[in-house]
């Protein structure tokens, strides 16, 4: 495979939440300049930029970022891969370094989503005056709500329920408990969109969106940006001791799409591509799930977190319910999961998410996470999945002795 090792030299996310006074470029620029400063480099050092933004219209975000904070004429890649957009940008920049084309690369994800509501994916156009077949299924009118659901809280509810049907033990209360964990974790994260402890009763008693997902069990739409500066192993050796000490090794960078299986075009299969990505990542990094000191996984809904314990092989196959009930995924447990608060409380500015979770892991591996620091963290995993589908898994390792 590639000859160059890839390291994260600098990374930063903005505060997630409502940024009324800031537009997409304000947020992207803030994260970009902060990531560059964190790495002790400037835009002039970068050899490639890869960036993503899903909701900002037709703007070429990578060039827009350059126009906002440094037009150096480097190759710019605009990437789009649903919720895996940020991870894809990171991987594009990383591949260029691995291939020996670049010494430094910049990856950025940004989204303005606050107030977008919970209905991503759901819509139904008004019925026409006469039935007319459209689309590849030849429906005479809108399908959402007439033949199942298109809304993400509903799709992922079914994914969690399917796991419960297959292995047992997953019910409303269990999914709400998972959400309680993440909301509890978020109280230590000053950059989270929501950082409020919630009781089980509050979570279960909140507005039902799609059973068993109530509102606090759904990812929070918010504004935010995240950026990371990557550097080759060779170049890193020429940088300062401090830069080398704080650099985080990208031990594995994997992207998969969903292979064909029965039912995958009826209900998205988020399991197989995640499991395949995890397997490849562990192999590439030469570590196993038992070596992970923390995991940031894609809890777009409480029902999703459960299945990914299994898909990332944090537990035995079929053992996700017992794994959670053992307390393993709390920050005090054996494999802390989503100590940032996860997407349910930290927030989910779609294109930023796949870099923000890498930032969170790096923060701990550098020992800079303050009150929420996982003590002695050396190895972490960041996972995202976007429907349609794309899965990104990064395994990160501390570089200091």
């Amino acid at each position, binding site marked *: 495979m590639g000859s160059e090792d890839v390291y994260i030299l600098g990374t930063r996310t903005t505060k997630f939440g409502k940024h009324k006074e800031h537009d997409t470029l304000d947020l992207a620029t803030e994260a970009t300049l902060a990531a560059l400063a964190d790495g002790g480099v400037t835009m002039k050092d970068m050899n490639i930029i890869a960036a993503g933004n899903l909701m900002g219209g037709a703007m070429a975000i990578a060039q827009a970022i350059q126009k906002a904070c440094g037009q150096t004429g480097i190759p710019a890649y605009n990437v789009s891969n649903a919720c895996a957009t940020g991870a894809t940008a990171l991987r594009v920049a990383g591949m260029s370094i691995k291939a020996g084309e670049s010494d430094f690369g910049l990856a950025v994800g940004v989204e303005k989503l606050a107030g977008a509501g*919970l*209905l991503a994916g*759901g*819509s*139904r156009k*008004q*019925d*026409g*005056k*006469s*039935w007319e*077949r459209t689309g*590849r*299924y*030849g*429906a*005479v*009118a*809108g*399908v*959402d*709500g*007439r*033949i*199942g*659901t298109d*809304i993400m*809280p*509903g799709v992922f*509810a*079914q*994914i969690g*329920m*399917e796991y*419960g*049907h297959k292995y047992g033990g997953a019910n*409303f209360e269990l999914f709400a408990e998972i959400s309680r964990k993440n909301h509890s974790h978020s109280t230590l994260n000053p950059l989270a969109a929501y950082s409020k402890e919630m009781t089980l009763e509050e979570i279960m008693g909140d*507005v*039902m*969106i*799609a*059973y*068993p*997902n109530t509102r606090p069990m759904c990812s929070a739409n918010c504004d935010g940006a995240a950026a990371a500066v990557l550097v080759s192993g060779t170049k890193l050796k020429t940088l300062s001791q401090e830069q080398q000490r704080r650099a985080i090794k990208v031990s594995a960078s994997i992207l998969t799409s969903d292979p*064909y299986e*029965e*039912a995958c*075009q*009826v*209900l998205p299969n988020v399991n197989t591509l995640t499991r395949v990505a995890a397997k490849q990542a562990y192999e590439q990094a030469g570590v196993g799930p038992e070596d992970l000191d923390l995991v940031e996984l894609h809890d777009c809904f409480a029902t999703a977190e459960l299945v990914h314990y299994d898909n990332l092989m944090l537990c035995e196959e079929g053992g996700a319910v017992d794994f959670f009930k053992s307390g393993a995924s709390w920050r005090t447990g054996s494999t802390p999961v989503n100590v940032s608060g996860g997407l349910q409380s930290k927030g989910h500015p779609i294109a930023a998410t796949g870099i923000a979770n890498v930032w969170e892991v790096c923060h701990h591996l550098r020992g800079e996470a303050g009150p929420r620091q996982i003590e002695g963290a050396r190895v972490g995993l960041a996972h995202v999945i976007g429907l349609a589908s794309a899965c990104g898994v990064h395994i990160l390792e501390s570089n200091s002795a």
Partner: protein
Amino acid sequence: MSEQIPFINYLVLGDEPHLVASECTACGARFFDRRNACAGCSGTDFKSVDIPTQGEVRAFTIVAFAAPGIEVPFVSAIVDCGGTSVRTNIVNVEPSPDHVKLGMPVKLTTFPIGKDDEGVEAINFGFEPAA
């Protein structure tokens, strides 16, 4: 009686309403949409197969919050019909977790969803509790 048409291409009306799928003649993968080729093996030859009208609920959700114009709550489900997964609403049941269960046996049913300006009635399908 006014003219009736199926709501969606893969529903067949008549005395025994049922769903049909395109089955890849090379690998057996089944699809409900118009196909260019098979997602499983890239084959391009398909035959039409009837899907069993009985099945069991493999996954469900009760949607309580949806886009304007969509009546809530409703039950969305994935039904396993003899090894072929079908996306559907579960109908003729109270939309509550006390009444909808994983593994519940269900059967296909059809119902009108309305007439257009020419008086043509569109018939949709759902699955309802069996027995």
